[in-house]
């Protein structure tokens, strides 16, 4: 059979395939150039950016648990100025959309970040992080209250003409309420889920393992929760959805598409295999060929019940 059509359109950004890399697991792209053909994936997303550089949390910052890992990095990043000077030039050398993930401590900072990123021609879209569980500000406080989320998205919307993706937290009672608030405030797409707040304890020391005490739980163990939330949100909003959460292989990625995702992000899997996103995209195409599916878009939300 002919090569299947792997392209999808994400809020106006054409992607060669639906596989993106998740923020915080792929550096600023260049770190992975040795391991990934950057033009084999749909898009890549940067580490979360802020106006000022951030040094992050004390160590230990990560710990493995069965089927997953906890991290409390604390949004360590180079800051917008160093990003523009040192990281953006690389984007010109790859013909793949670069998406900038960002956050702020206040609504004004979110808007300022959106303005700064809007000016960068090499940035294809913005992903606003209202869901980092590891810092007091610049994340979860905006991501767990629909009115706050709405204010952040409204402010960012006014500051950029680029596609605006909002990354949602699973640490809420009803993710659909958050999704609707972001849709109404002008988001172009939603990405979900960010990590789940978790904890690990060292019994012998009688202490938390992480210096931050709690951390964000990711990896294959969270996939069922992520799938459920993507499915719920896909039924409730018209926006395209990027499915994230424990995607380790093509099967996982295709399941997210059936649940309603237009694209997916590969996160923790890139830590284990830096070439994971490329492998997943290739294996998805192989699955389509084997199953006689001509166009991957036909799978979006095609879950039968």
């Amino acid at each position, binding site marked *: 059979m002919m090569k299947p059509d792997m392209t999808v359109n994400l809020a106006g950004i054409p992607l060669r395939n639906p596989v993106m890399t998740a923020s*915080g*697991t*792929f*550096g600023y792209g260049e*770190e*992975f150039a*040795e*391991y990934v053909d950057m033009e084999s994936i749909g898009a890549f997303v940067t*580490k979360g950016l802020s106006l000022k550089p951030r*040094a*992050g949390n*004390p*160590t*230990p*910052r*990560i*710990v*493995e648990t*069965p*089927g*997953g*890992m906890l*991290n409390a*990095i604390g949004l*360590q990043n180079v800051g917008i100025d160093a990003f523009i000077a040192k990281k953006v030039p690389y984007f010109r050398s790859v013909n793949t959309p670069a998406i900038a993930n960002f956050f702020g401590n206040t609504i004004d900072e979110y808007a300022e970040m959106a303005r700064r990123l809007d000016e960068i021609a090499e940035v294809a879209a913005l992903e606003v992080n209202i869901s980092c569980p590891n810092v007091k500000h610049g994340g979860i406080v905006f991501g767990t209250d629909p009115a706050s989320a709405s204010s952040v998205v409204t402010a960012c919307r006014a500051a950029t003409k680029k596609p605006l993706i909002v990354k949602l937290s699973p640490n809420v009672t009803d993710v659909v309420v958050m999704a609707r608030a972001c849709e109404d405030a002008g988001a172009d797409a939603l990405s979900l889920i960010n990590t789940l707040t978790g904890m690990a304890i060292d019994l012998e020391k009688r202490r938390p393992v992480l210096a931050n005490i709690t951390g964000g739980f990711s*990896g*294959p163990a969270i996939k069922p929760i992520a799938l459920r939330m993507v499915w719920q949100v896909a039924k409730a909003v018209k926006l395209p959805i990027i499915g994230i959460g424990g995607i*380790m292989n093509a099967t996982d990625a295709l399941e997210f598409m059936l649940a309603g995702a237009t694209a997916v992000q590969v996160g*923790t899997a*890139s*830590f*284990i*295999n*830096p*070439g994971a996103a490329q492998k997943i995209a290739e294996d998805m195409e192989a699955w389509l060929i084997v199953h006689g599916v001509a166009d991957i878009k036909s799978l979006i939300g095609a879950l039968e019940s």
Partner: protein
Amino acid sequence: MQFTSLILSNVEVSPGYWRMRMTAPPECASAQPGQFVMVRVNGAIDPLLRRPFGIFDVGTYTPAQSGAVAQPYLEMLYRVVGKGTTMLSTLHGSDLLDILGPLGKGFDLGAADEEKLIVGGGVGLAPLYLLARELVKESKVRLFAGGRTRDDILCITEFERLGIECYTATEDGSLGECGLVTEALLRRLDQLQGRASIYACGPHGMLNAVANIAAERGIPCQVSLEGYMACGVGACLGCVAPGHSHSPETPDFRCVCTEGPVFESGELKWRD
């Protein structure tokens, strides 16, 4: 680079410490002393993450078949501490491993006319053998190996075979002198004539003591750090260590996997 490696041997060299030899691509032959590899223990999701191991040695071996040509190998020396290393210790010759590396910044070999003082604590000797092999080509080298008991003093005969003078110290006195390895290091420094530099790897407390000694005496010192990391390529930012100007108000973190694992001791923050 990422490669699949065939285990050639996996032997317990001391209670709880194992030495594994595995095939490697030719590029590994030029691994710098102090670099490390990230090993995936198996293809399942528990353990999920790779484990970092210092490169103990690289070399070539000739397979047993007639007409076989020499093949590159790499060795790691590791301690069984948890689930991942326990599983690793159960693997046998002909098992396969998925490996990423060599990674990170290794040791600077320094000037030939310095006396090289290598300090290793327990499994901290792992990245120091390849270093010693390189240093001994041009310089006078002394090894100071420490541990809690004799079981923690690893592969000393390998170092002795290089023609290196080895000093051992154990906290319980079961091998070498009774006490800390830093005491033996200090005595040597007292007798020192001419220039020297220190290379150290081991528990953080030992590195801290060595770094302070080096600072007091104005001797260049490189340390190799261990870090709990997910990726090994600078993306997860899990393995950072505090830099010299670090404070809670003005954080200064260095990435162990890409800026290290070897650092000039003066680059890092130590307790007095």
